[in-house]
């Protein structure tokens, strides 16, 4: 699993042509980066893997429906220096979850902005800080985890992230500690040029018996065709209770690729949410490694797409131990000519007896021109397991609309109620109440905008 030690042979004489600028950028970057050796090694491995792999194409089975050629064609402009002139707390206020009073870390174009960040009420030993700082000052809690869960050798984007990341959040919760307030991480892009790329790297470690809630929001103050390429490694120790939410609300021109590489310990309870609202093209990879017995995890997600947006979720749930439950619930609401992809792979290894794995992906098409691709993939090597999957792609239920109309509710209101309830099935699973309520409002507002647009076009 650990790829950083094995130095893959690099053949810089024959890199894929498209990766040459990346390689050149890396050589410049390496000169200015002041990393400890173990990070340097990982970065080198990252760029080698990237050069070897190149960008995925439609021929790649895992990227059949998602064409990243537009990303490959962009000029590559990683943001190597902080650029946050002009970004004020006021400008970011409406991106924040107002109901959260806990710690907040803000990153602008991939760089930590300490003056916009604050930490409050952290219990003994809990760390909420910049990863770059943690690497520089206290690698003891970082080194055992960083790069161990997100694999550079299997993904060009993770490889690129590993090579170029500047910063991200480091959250460490020692054994038995409970962080009472959710931690908010805000990633804002101010990109002025196409191809501007922020590589964010986050590491979240919740040691055994600890509890923590983390909200990652990706937002934008930019109109450019920029790229966010982020990787979050999440480790939930034995008995840990973790809720993690990613809200992707990038600009309509943006490209957004993230990987959540997660490792769950015995009897842990993890709830993750992926809410995709923005970006021209977004891809969310979630790799959950169920590494201890008797744990329970829920991977929950909602995507709303309109215009020509594409939202892709690629899930791998890896049952390595017995008596684990995993539930995936993903709903999508697609308007206009937009597209979605859901790829849900469930792997049940020979030791994972008594696995209970469920997966549902439901897609609501609000237009005849929208397309939802859904692909379950079950690989089961144990015999005493329960695995179910179900996928639907359809329009609003006509019977339900008639039922509501027969109860005095007008056609438009009936449609809205049903669309809202479809999103609500997912939002209702957010445990953290202020986040759930604000998210509900945000999603509701977006859906209303869409509805007004559709009815306006009639």
């Amino acid at each position, binding site marked *: 699993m650990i790829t950083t030690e094995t130095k893959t042979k690099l053949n810089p004489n024959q890199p894929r042509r498209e990766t040459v600028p990346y390689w050149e950028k890396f050589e410049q970057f390496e000169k200015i980066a002041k990393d400890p050796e173990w990070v340097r090694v990982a970065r080198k491995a990252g760029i080698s893997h990237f050069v070897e792999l190149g960008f995925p194409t439609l021929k790649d089975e895992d990227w059949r429906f998602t064409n990243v050629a537009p990303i490959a064609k962009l000029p590559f402009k990683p943001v190597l220096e902080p650029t946050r002139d002009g970004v004020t707390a006021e400008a970011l206020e409406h991106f924040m979850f107002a109901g959260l009073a806990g710690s907040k870390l803000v990153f602008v174009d991939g760089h930590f902005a300490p003056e916009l960040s604050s930490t409050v009420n952290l219990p003994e030993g809990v760390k909420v800080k910049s990863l770059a700082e943690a690497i520089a000052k206290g690698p003891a809690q970082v080194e055992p985890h960083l790069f161990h869960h997100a694999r550079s050798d299997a993904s060009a984007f993770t490889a690129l992230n590993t090579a170029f990341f500047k910063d991200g959040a480091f959250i460490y919760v020692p054994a038995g500690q409970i962080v009472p307030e959710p931690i908010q991480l805000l990633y804002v892009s101010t990109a002025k040029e196409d191809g501007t790329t922020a590589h964010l790297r986050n590491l979240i470690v919740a040691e055994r018996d600890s509890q923590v809630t983390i909200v990652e929001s990706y937002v934008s103050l930019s109109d450019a065709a920029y790229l966010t390429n982020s990787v979050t490694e999440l480790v939930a120790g034995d008995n840990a209770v973790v809720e993690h939410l990613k809200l992707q609300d990038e600009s309509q021109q943006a490209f957004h690729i993230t990987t959540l590489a997660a490792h769950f310990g015995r009897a842990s309870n993890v709830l993750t949410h992926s809410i995709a609202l923005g970006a021209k093209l977004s891809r969310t990879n979630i790799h959950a490694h169920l590494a201890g017995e008797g744990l329970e995890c829920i991977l929950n997600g909602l995507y709303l797409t309109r215009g020509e947006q594409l939202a892709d979720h690629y899930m791998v749930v890896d049952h390595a131990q017995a008596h684990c439950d995993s539930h995936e619930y993903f709903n999508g609401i697609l308007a206009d000519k937009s597209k979605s992809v859901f790829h849900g792979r469930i792997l049940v290894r020979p030791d994972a007896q008594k696995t209970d794995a469920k997966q549902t992906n439901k897609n609501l098409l609000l237009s005849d021109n929208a397309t939802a691709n859904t692909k379950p993939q079950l690989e089961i090597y144990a015999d005493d397991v329960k695995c179910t999957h179900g996928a639907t792609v359809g329009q609003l239920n006509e019977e*339900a609309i*008639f*039922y509501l*109309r*027969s109860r*005095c*509710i007008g*056609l438009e209101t009936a449609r809205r109620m049903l669309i*809202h309830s479809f999103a609500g099935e997912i939002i209702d699973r957010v445990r953290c109440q202020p986040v759930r309520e604000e998210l509900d409002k945000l999603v509701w507002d977006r859906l209303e905008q869409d509805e007004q647009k559709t009815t306006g076009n009639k």
Partner: protein
Amino acid sequence: MTQPILTIKNLSAGVEGREILKGINLTIRPGEVHAVMGPNGSGKSTLASILAGRDGYHITGGEVVYCGQDLLELEAEDRAREGVFLAFQYPVEIPGVNSTYFLKAAYNEIRKHRGQPEFDAVEFLKFVRERMKILEVPEDFLKRPVNHGFSGGEKKRNEIFQMAVLDPKLAILDETDSGLDIDALQIVATGVNRLKRPDNAQLVITHYQRLLNFIVPDYVHVLVDGRIVRTGGKELALELEENGYESIVHGGAVPA
């Protein structure tokens, strides 16, 4: 004579390439209870659906006048706001839509339609609790999504509970008795009777005479193959129970 609540004249209707109703005539006046009986597939639910405004049926002839206006011209929601209520033979589950939210939205539409101020959450809850007593509906019904996970009998009871909230002028009950146990049947029938007033009317579709012991009809109509082949008083239901539809179809009786 008072104006009828509903007048159906020579109504023919069907779906693409198939006629289902073949000339229905029916007049319902205030204070009356009409029962419609008939074999499976004879068109009872089709009639109910067309009255409630379901899309997808072609009206090939005739007319329907409701309280002096052309019913077929109105959208389904406008019919409901004007007081037409259909208790579905197969109530629809709507996961994700909370029952209280749904009922309040429905009820407030009626209030708006009548020019009354809308009820806020507190006023509505007070009002709805009262209505719940009529049908002995458990509190739990309000908290769950509409019909979601309800048993067959619970769904039927929920339909009549909605009727109690919306207080229609013309209630059409499509086989509300099927799926109800004996006790529930009594509760539902008692509820329906309590909602009966001199200025409203009920059209009750059923297969069983049993229901009509509780909800006593003024008229019983027998619908066979899209036509009302016979109309009589409540004793007609007993006759059907004993002899089945065959005798009537072949007895050559003519509608009244």
